[in-house]
């Protein structure tokens, strides 16, 4: 566990700086778009639910909670991608008027 933990802490620390760097300067019109994008990023959490559906880690709810988690993460992913499309579309129209 300690070896894995150490690597994990490295990865987290690097992720921390990457996250700060990527979002250093953003125009306000893109806030909603970035938030929808972050929703899709967080939807990779669905991978975590998969661990509970096999025999790696026992699921007390017989896969019930992980199943719901998969639905929620799927909704975040599908919804996020559709929302991004809508936001980008609105953006183009807004420019077209200009």
């Amino acid at each position: 566990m300690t070896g894995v933990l150490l690597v994990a802490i490295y990865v987290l620390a690097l992720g921390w700086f990457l996250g700060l760097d990527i979002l250093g300067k953003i125009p306000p019109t893109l806030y909603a778009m970035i938030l929808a994008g972050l929703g899709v990023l967080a939807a990779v959490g669905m991978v975590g639910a998969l661990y509970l559906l096999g025999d790696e880690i026992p699921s007390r709810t017989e896969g019930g909670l992980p199943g719901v988690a998969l639905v929620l993460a799927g909704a975040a992913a599908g919804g996020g991608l559709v929302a991004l499309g809508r936001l980008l579309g609105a953006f183009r129209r807004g420019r077209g008027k200009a």
Partner: protein
Amino acid sequence: MAQVLRSTVAPLLYLVSAVVFFLGLKALTRVRSARRGRPLIAIGLLFAAAGAILELGTGRLAVFGACAGLGGVVGAIFASRLPAAPSVGRVAWLPGLAGMGSGLVAIELAFAYDLWSLQGAVAAAAAFLGVTSGYVALGLLRKPKDTPSNAVEAALVAACAGWSVALVGLLVSNAILLIVGGVAGTAGLALGRTVAAAAGRSLFGLLFGAVKTGDSGGYDNIRSCGTEEAAMVMESAHNVLIVPGLGMAIAQAQHAVKEVGEQLEKRGAKVRYVVAPSAGCIPGHMNILLDEAGVPHDRLVFVEDAGPFAKEADAVLVIGADDIVNVAAAADPKNPLFGMPALDLSGAGSVFVVKRSLRPGLAGVKNPLFEQSHTTMIFGDAKKVMQALIAELKSSRH
């Protein structure tokens, strides 16, 4: 064979997924590249899922596909009902759902481990963050108004969701969860900080300080943007109107203003400068300054004659002027500005108002133009904004 796939191909898929995710997120942070962000993020998610299925075995593909697919369709339906330009609070449910999902996974993990072990504590923290994310997102659904504190809460929804995912990744030793969760978490926090800074507040101040300070000047429906966005609109405009005022004089921005005009003319735009005799400190102040900067006289239009130009303008750049574009005040007999010549910009395309703050102009009167839907504020010193605009215009030319 299956073993080889698991130990080498799955990590590779994760790596590709992480890189593509970051490129997508990075693309979303710039106006010019935002369109590229969506397919990249979709591909990133696809690779992450493929890697996980490969690593964990295809046995659970059916359940995974059914559950995630169902969720995807439901989410897509709800997202398609969003308004065309939703506020930040209206999309917070997206990361909120992801956070809630991660929280549920963490709850199961907390049961699987001994709660008093390190794993148990991490699982409890992940569950707390995930559920908090979902709960705050739920609360935001009931707040239709887009205040700075709502926007910061929305960003924190993403931050909590991301960190919950990262902690789950720590528990199950999964690289993609750790990396992407960690980045989404910090990115959410960075977004919150940026949103707070745009409102002139600190993150902590917005979350925990109930007292509303800040000089909003009595305005509440203000949109602001950076020079990049303004440059994109202006460079595609055919008719541009520039309206200088006292702010240009104070910042000594006339040379920079002239250069912006020249850059736009190089792109084939017709540029006109609107001068009001009353603008500035002395009569004809704007004429003197623009003359000093070398703006040709045939580009100048007096404010009384500028009406037709305003109607056909695709883009208007108001630089440190306030009262001379305040038609409402000029038409109101009770107003100190009553009867002054003012330029009606309500029929123009996009209006960008460069101003240091929302403090009213010389006459101390609120300007309804700033709240109109086609108006965007660019806050800052006139000279600095013009120089940034010139840099953006130059960088976009090929």
